[in-house]
């Protein structure tokens, strides 16, 4: 076991973990930050997406040792001042959420996109969330919600 001080959502979390454990398992099982989901545990579905130094990554295949001295942002860290982030609001109001299991991952991918490109086109939105599988919605409502969050016209 190693000791890790992890910077997550602006806080420092102290935890023991083995270097081979995935960040996802540490977040969910040790730190009880369960917003990031485990859909496949092999990088295929995107439901575990978190931001590492501002970039979206797959926390299920990211070893906790690789997070040392870096900053993690998870879905729990998005609301500001107790208010949901606009992406969270639009996803809620525009039918972008059904079972909700893919939702945190989609929102994190979308958040990363908007940080980099505040007014993305529909194609850019679809490209950014192509690594997030949703089995319920068929994506249209998600794309609409993200367009609304970005303030771009909805087709």
């Amino acid at each position, binding site marked *: 076991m190693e000791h890790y001080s992890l910077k997550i959502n602006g806080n420092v979390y102290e935890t023991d973990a083995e270097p081979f454990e995935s960040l996802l398992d540490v977040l969910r099982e040790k730190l009880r930050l369960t917003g990031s989901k485990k859909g496949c545990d092999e990088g295929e579905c995107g439901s575990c997406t978190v931001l590492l130094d501002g970039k979206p990554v797959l926390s299920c295949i990211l070893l906790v040792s690789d997070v040392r001295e870096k900053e993690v942002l998870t879905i729990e860290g998005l609301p500001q001042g107790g208010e949901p982030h606009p992406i969270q609001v639009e996803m809620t109001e525009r039918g972008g959420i059904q079972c909700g299991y893919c939702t945190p991952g989609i929102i994190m991918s979308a958040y990363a996109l908007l940080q980099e490109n505040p007014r993305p086109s529909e194609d850019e939105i679809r490209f950014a969330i192509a690594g997030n599988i949703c*089995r319920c919605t068929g994506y249209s409502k998600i794309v609409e919600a993200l367009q609304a969050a970005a303030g771009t016209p909805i087709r």
Partner: protein
Amino acid sequence: MAQPEQVTSAAQSGPYDWIGSSVPKVDALDKALGITQYVGDMQMPGMLHARIRWSGVPHAVIRGIDTSDAEKVPGVRAVLTAGDIPGVNRYGLAVQDQRVLADDKVRSAADPVALVAAETEQAAEEAINKIKLDLEPLRPVLSIEDALDPTAPAIHEGGNLFARTTVRKGDLDQGVRDSDVIVETTYRTHLMDHMAMETESSLAYMDPTGVLTIITSTQYPYRDRRQIAPALNLSMNKVRVVQAPIGGGFGRKDDITSEIHAGLLALKTHRPVRLIYTRQDSLIANTKRHPMLMKFRTGARSDGRLTFVDADIYGDTGAYLSLGAFVIKKAGIHACGPYDVPNIRVDTHTLYTNNLSSGAMRGFGVLQAAMAHESQMDQLAHRLGISPIDIRLINTLKPGLATGTGQVMDEGCGIEATVLRIKEYMESHDLRFARS
């Protein structure tokens, strides 16, 4: 935390005004915030982690299961096999043909043969890999053709043909005589996984009053309880099934998945037990969409009017029925599609094989039938030189006409309007069919 604004307006005053308006789902904001607790997000003090050892072999006699090495893995608290089941080792949605843990025989590669509960997931994983199975392979039945072979071994007592259903209307011979063209084709569809984003999961514990409580990702808590209680030899009032938020089901969480296994381990260890399928477990073990073999003969007159449908639909329900007979029957009921067909002979055959079992999935057999009847329509259109749109418009069920099974359509029959909209769309976007 602030709730998002509700989509309300002054116009929404009467009790039915919600119909037709967009309303945010009540549980959506929690999901967006990541605070919804699915089963996998829950922990309990003293909770153990469980894993299942699958048979890995489609058809075999079980000669022995050696769990001694698995028991020695540090942190392992229970290794269970069929002999540890306190009640009847049988369950199933429609017929009780499934074993909680395989006893005499292995009927599919996804048969659970042993369970492990351990202090960590790694220990449980290590232990299931250390279980040694002594299996004597039997001739496997791996396709619809295999299942129809009279020399094939019977997977269950009673043989491999579980059920046959028929649809009859009019006079088939007359239909054939009335036909100017007949197309005959065999169609096959494949097995398909629902791939719900959340895998099957249960958290089971004994509550302080001695009620076994199972929090689970399920579509039917009461139907689950009906199957769990007898297997665990508990009376119904000693089993409580709590439906957790479910991360996608699409039919696959109709069946028992992880519930009995988690419950059994909790019962045996006196500890809370959480069983979360890995994606691989989920792909192996849960019900799928039925593969079907569909032999279709369809006739039409030169003006495009359908004259008859003559079809045999064979469905591979795998090693266990689940809802197979109902799904496959439904494929037969829908074999003529949304069309007015005067003469019909459709038989369906529900077959056991040693494949992974299939059950409910969005569409429930209708999709497979659609693939066949719509392909037949396209072929007829091509042969007759009619547009694929027109041949459908000629034959669509209209209010007052009846389906093959006698259901008379009323004003809710929208197929004609649907086809007309497609026609309009294609014309306005200058879209044409590739053939014809």
